[in-house]
């Protein structure tokens, strides 16, 4: 199969200046000795993308993934090497880049599509499709500066996908608009895949990759670490890169507690803030937490394996009617589970240990955060909380995609002509 994109020995150097001299005077004064050091954002990248393939480029912030995408898009030029592209290319590096606020939506469609390399005739032909996709029929002749940010990106996306690209480059821009529009965007991407167009997605979110890509390239410090099927590649990414320097062992605990949050708003779980946030009341102090699992020989859990979060409490005076709360969050901030034990218990003065035991953690690939609370039943008063109390990393040896490992079995039963199982 012919390749749509060939990246050959591409390197990109950035000059980092301690002090940037952009004026003529400074240029002359400091001619030839501008303090800088070279930073190689990409080093000898070799990558081939086959026609019709959807490839993900996965890496942490600053790993060079966006630089690579910009080079492919032709926005940046590689310092060394070359990139060969076959077919019409549309890059969604930023939706609605180059929209002129003073111009109407109509004029902007023509200008923007023309920037992306579309001819006037083709824009005129697909104009209605663009407007319909962006759902802006009513406002198309209004100046873009009156558009909401949602309308703005919708129009941007609509123009980009209607350029009819053979190669589509996407840079973390799918999280636009409301949920319904996001779905529409994903559907369009899937349609592109079925139509055999080549798609390159850049993201630091492995879950997106798993759902979309045939192949994933993991990039770190400007070099490709691995290229392969999403499962193993994401695993490499998690093990080698994401978890480096991140361990939940003894959690640092703040000593003096601030005024405890006693508002009823506490009943609504808040997204997991990082780093560790402890708020202890005067009477209850969280002194430590750890994750206990039954696995040996590997650091990550498989879906469905048990895990416990064990928390040490230091109680200064006996408390009556205490309950425990626990919440589990996905890495994108989505709440997966929130629980309040609800049963009032007596918490004696001194040292206590609370164990939050999950008999099974039926989650799929990802890093999940567990937060715990010591509170009134119902959560009216929170005596102490620890966020995060533990981090559970799940590694799925299977092929399922998503968040939850639902216990599914697929059975095939051939039937006889009489309607009986054969």
């Amino acid at each position, binding site marked *: 199969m012919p390749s*749509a994109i060939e990246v050959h020995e591409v390197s990109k150097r950035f*000059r980092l200046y301690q002090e940037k001299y*952009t*004026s*003529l005077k400074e*240029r002359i004064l400091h001619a030839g000795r501008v303090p800088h050091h070279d930073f190689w954002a990409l080093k000898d990248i070799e990558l081939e993308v086959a*026609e019709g393939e*959807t490839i993900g480029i996965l890496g942490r912030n600053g790993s060079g993934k966006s630089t690579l995408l910009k*080079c492919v898009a*032709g*926005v*940046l030029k*590689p*310092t060394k*090497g*070359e*990139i*060969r*592209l*076959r*077919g*019409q*290319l549309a*890059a969604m*590096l*930023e939706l609605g*880049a*180059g929209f*002129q606020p*003073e*111009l109407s939506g109509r004029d902007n469609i023509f*200008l923007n599509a*023309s*920037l992306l*390399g579309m001819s006037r005739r*083709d824009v005129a*032909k*697909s104009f*209605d*499709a663009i407007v319909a996709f962006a759902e802006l029929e009513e406002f198309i002749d209004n100046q873009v500066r009156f558009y909401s940010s949602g309308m703005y990106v919708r129009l941007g996306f609509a123009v980009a996908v*209607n350029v*009819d690209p*053979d190669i589509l480059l996407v840079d973390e821009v799918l999280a636009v608009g409301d949920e319904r529009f996001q779905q529409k965007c994903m559907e369009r991407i*899937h*349609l592109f*895949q*079925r*139509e*055999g167009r080549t798609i390159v997605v850049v993201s630091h979110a492995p879950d997106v990759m798993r759902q979309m890509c*045939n192949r994933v390239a993991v990039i770190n410090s400007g070099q490709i670490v691995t290229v392969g099927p999403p499962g193993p590649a994401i695993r490499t990414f998690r093990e080698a890169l994401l978890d480096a320097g991140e361990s939940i062992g003894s959690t640092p605990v703040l000593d003096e507690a601030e005024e405890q949050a006693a508002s009823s708003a506490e009943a609504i779980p808040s997204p997991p803030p990082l780093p560790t946030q402890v708020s202890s009341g005067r009477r209850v102090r969280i002194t430590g937490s750890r994750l206990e699992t039954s696995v040996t020989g590997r650091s990550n859990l*498989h*879906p*469905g394996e048990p895990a416990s979060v064990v928390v040490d409490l230091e109680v200064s005076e006996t408390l009556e009617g205490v309950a425990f709360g626990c919440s589990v969050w996905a890495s994108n901030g989505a709440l997966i589970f929130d629980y309040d034990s609800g049963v009032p218990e007596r918490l004696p003065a001194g040292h206590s240990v609370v164990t939050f035991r999950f008999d099974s953690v*039926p989650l799929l690939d990802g890093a999940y955060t567990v937060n715990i609370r010591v509170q009134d039943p119902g959560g009216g008063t929170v005596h102490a909380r620890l966020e995060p109390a533990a981090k559970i990393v799940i590694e799925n040896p*299977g092929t*399922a*995609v998503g968040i939850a*490992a639902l216990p*599914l079995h*697929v059975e095939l039963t051939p039937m006889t002509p009489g309607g009986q199982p054969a």
Partner: protein
Amino acid sequence: MAQVQQAERPAEPERRRAASSSSEGVTASAGGARHWDDQPQRVVAAKVSTVHRVREIWAARELLGFLIRKELKVRYKSSFLGFLWSFLNPAMVLMIYFVVFRFIEHTTVQNFAIYLFCGLLPWNLFNTALLSSAGTLVANAGIVKKVAFPREVLALAQVGVAGCYFLFQTCILVLFLVGFRVMPDWKYLPVLLLAVVVDLVFSAALAVALSALNVYMRDIEHLIQVVLVALFFAEPIVYPFSLVGKRLADHHLVWLFLANPLTSMVLAFQRCIYGNVAGAVKPLNPGALPVIATYSGMFYLELLGVVLLGSLVLLYLAMLIFRRVEGNFAEEL
């Protein structure tokens, strides 16, 4: 542990369908399934040949048109007089010079307004092109950083805008000519047309170079304003050619005056449009000098031809400079 089957993922790409519901028009133009061998191959590399680049710019000519239109629409969008400003602005400048030189300097040039206008036309084209193109890459940083297209087009669009204003001003000049009952010297029309081409090429060359350099040295944008004010007086626009020509001729230095590319354009405009005014070519009274240069048509053509060649070389160099620094635009802006 839960046994989970893999969700369906698009694996074998079907051949692209001829048309989908919402992108009907587009795919239709592609004519259904595509053959990859027919697809042009594009190369992103550190070095690109000039020929290749020229082809890219040519392919972006529609974009150039859209950018020019956008610029014309946007520039005076929120002002009360709007588009009228593009006429009013040069008219007022003309008026100021007219008042200063007619009533304060007591110039003896006949139909001085027409004489001024002849010189201002090619000058304004050059002046506006350079002033607006120097900062255009910085002003359009949003597109430059996020969209891949031959960025020279941004500078060329500013030259195009200046060209449009040039046309508007030419319309006003025609009104002036009718009003003052002045008939241009049509024999010199080819000279005038060549001068317009030379003006455009020369402006484009400097516009492309300066716009690129300004990304790295932002002073250029400001410096150019001062330089242009000084340069304005280097051509016989507000004063008659004879004033300088005579004195330089005594020292055999007229060539120095003519070496300024803009002078050749200004002289060509004056010869064609102002040539029939009394005193332009033949002095009104003995002892006086003709107002404009009195070279032969051939001389003008040769002079402009040389300037055109020079401008083309300059344009080539400007594109080299542009390409050399372009690779890091996205980073510098």
